[in-house]
């Protein structure tokens, strides 16, 4: 047990507290603190990925023994998500520090609270704490979404806040059912008790599982529950929207964690099969709707929001196939799609600032400065996002589709994914040609300066996509091991409870 494990939660909390107390400090100092805290998180993420290679790590808060105390668990999946969130946050905070953090007050404090919630959700081994960390990240995200104010943000904010409050209520109902039946909320303990549950309780347990799926589905944007997303993401400021790219993945993470660990311990009668039955068609429909949305989007930010929906549809569809190799490939796709979705939100802002008119509206043809640099960035990002070689998009999708062939209904996934890819290529090339080829060059005087720091931030983030392609082999190896670990919940249970999982006897509430 090492105390390093709690730092991803404690560091952003302390940073946020400092920023709140010293909110009169100059914006420069606030930025330094925020960037420093986020950089430390990146370092911790790297440590977590290295540490998780060997074994599970558990941290008992206050040394209260499980299953009674609060426990943090670090495994390969949470380590990977920690690193991804920290990296993404670093780019977002660097981008925001070029000016958009001045639109309102407390940007950096809110940003750090958001990171605290995200990291906590990845680390916790307890369902109630998952709820608490969800609330922390949601409350911070409400404020971040509204940061800077404006009519569009208030409108989008209302939908976002109300649907998430409803989600929290459902989350608590599911937790209540689970606690009432099993008398515990520790994930490992819950897994053991659910596996040993009597047949009479199966229906209630399945109800709780489906309720949890609705809650995580709201976060991860699954079909009937995603209509808040395009407006919310396209209304928020660029770095905030880019950070929100990880939020749907938090929902996906919770789904994977809960379905595979809590409801998947007993291989004889897995409760998660009933959930997968629902997840599969809904996720495919999400993917299809995302593709239509990408084609029909009126601005680049809305298009990026639908790209987020598409990627989360593909993730959930591949997860619903319930196979180890497919899950490994979809985790690779998760890395790629999170980075690229963030890139598109930042690019929309970067290009929008250089256009004479229309910001990021696709229907407006306006002169653009620095066409070469921005055009190249857009081309590389679009090629990677659409899944064309040679970038990570191609590798991750090819691997995913190749691994999916073992599933009886894999042609559905192939068809919809490839068709969605075609839609995406059409939409992105239309956007690119309309912006970079059509307009007249800027006439002399009104040239705007291109901010080199913003360009560098976006370029490096795109570079990560290239790096993922270059170092695909070790990443794929890591993902395969991660998926293998997730499909062996008994090892998780043993690591947390300290004794092998034995499924005997009825429930003792």
């Amino acid at each position, binding site marked *: 047990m090492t105390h390093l494990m709690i730092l991803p939660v404690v560091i952003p909390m302390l940073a946020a507290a400092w920023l709140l107390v010293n909110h009169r400090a100059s914006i420069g100092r606030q930025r330094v603190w925020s960037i420093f805290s986020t950089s430390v998180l990146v370092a911790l993420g790297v440590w977590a990925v290295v540490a998780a290679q060997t074994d599970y790590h558990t941290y008992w808060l206050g040394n209260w023994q499980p299953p009674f105390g609060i426990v943090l668990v670090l495994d390969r999946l949470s380590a990977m998500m920690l690193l991804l969130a920290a990296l993404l946050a670093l780019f977002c905070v660097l981008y925001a520090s070029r000016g958009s953090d001045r639109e309102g007050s407390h940007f950096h404090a809110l940003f750090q609270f958001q990171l605290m919630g995200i990291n906590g959700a990845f680390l916790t081994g307890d369902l109630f704490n998952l709820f608490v960390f969800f609330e922390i990240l949601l409350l911070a995200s409400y404020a971040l979404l509204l940061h800077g*104010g404006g*009519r569009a943000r208030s409108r989008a904010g209302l939908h976002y*806040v109300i649907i998430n409050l*409803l989600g929290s209520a459902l989350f*608590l109902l599911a937790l209540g059912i689970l606690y*009432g039946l099993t008398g515990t909320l520790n994930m490992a303990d819950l897994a053991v008790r659910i596996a040993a549950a009597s047949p009479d309780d199966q229906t209630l347990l399945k109800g709780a599982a489906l309720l949890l799926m609705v809650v995580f589905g709201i976060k991860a944007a699954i079909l009937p529950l995603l209509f808040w997303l395009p407006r919310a993401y396209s209304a928020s400021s660029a770095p905030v929207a880019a950070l929100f790219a990880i939020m749907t993945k938090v929902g996906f993470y919770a789904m994977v964690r809960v379905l595979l660990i809590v409801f998947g311990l007993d291989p004889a009668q897995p409760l998660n099969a009933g959930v997968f039955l629902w997840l599969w068609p809904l996720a495919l429909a999400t993917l299809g709707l995302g593709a239509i949305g990408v084609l029909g989007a009126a601005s680049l930010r809305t298009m990026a929001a639908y790209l987020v929906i598409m990627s989360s549809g593909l993730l959930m569809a591949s997860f619903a196939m319930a196979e180890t190799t497919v899950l490994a490939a979809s985790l690779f796709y998760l890395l790629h799609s999170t980075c690229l979705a963030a890139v598109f939100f930042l690019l929309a802002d970067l290009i929008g600032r250089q256009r004479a008119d229309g910001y990021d509206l696709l229907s407006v043809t306006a002169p653009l400065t620095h066409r070469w640099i921005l055009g190249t960035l857009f081309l590389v990002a679009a090629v990677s996002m659409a899944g064309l070689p040679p970038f990570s998009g191609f590798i991750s999708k090819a691997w995913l589709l190749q691994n999916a062939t073992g599933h009886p209904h894999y042609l559905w996934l192939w068809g919809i994914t490839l068709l969605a890819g075609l839609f995406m290529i059409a939409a992105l090339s239309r956007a690119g040609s309309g912006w970079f080829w059509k307009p007249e060059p800027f006439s002399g005087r009104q040239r705007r300066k291109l901010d080199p720091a913003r360009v560098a931030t976006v370029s490096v983030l795109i570079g990560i996509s290239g790096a993922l392609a270059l170092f695909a082999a070790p990443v794929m190896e890591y993902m395969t091991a991660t998926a293998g670990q997730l499909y062996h919940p008994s090892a998780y249970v043993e690591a947390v409870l300290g004794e092998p999982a034995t499924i005997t006897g009825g429930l003792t509430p």
Partner: protein
Amino acid sequence: MELMIAAALGILTTCGVFLILRARTFSVVLGLTLLSHAVNLFLFSMGRLTTGAPAIVGLTESSADPLPQALVLTAIVISFAMTAFVVVLSLKAAVELRNDHVDGENPNEDRL
């Protein structure tokens, strides 16, 4: 007592869901409040309904499960904060958008 609690839960949830589906922010906020009341009551009853059993071991022969009470406390604090937030947000939206529709717009107005 079971019947009473169950009826209270049912009525609170029904009213909450009905109000949440209304088009004006004020009724939606009221609906969310009712629903969170229902949730808190539900969580509380998950520790089983007992009388004369404090949540301290040793005072009486049987003691109540203290955990649901702790959970409810957390849930109440969170839902209280969230309600305060959503009230402020709807006020802000009503002032800025000059109407209190949850969509913040009349159907024939241009979308932002």
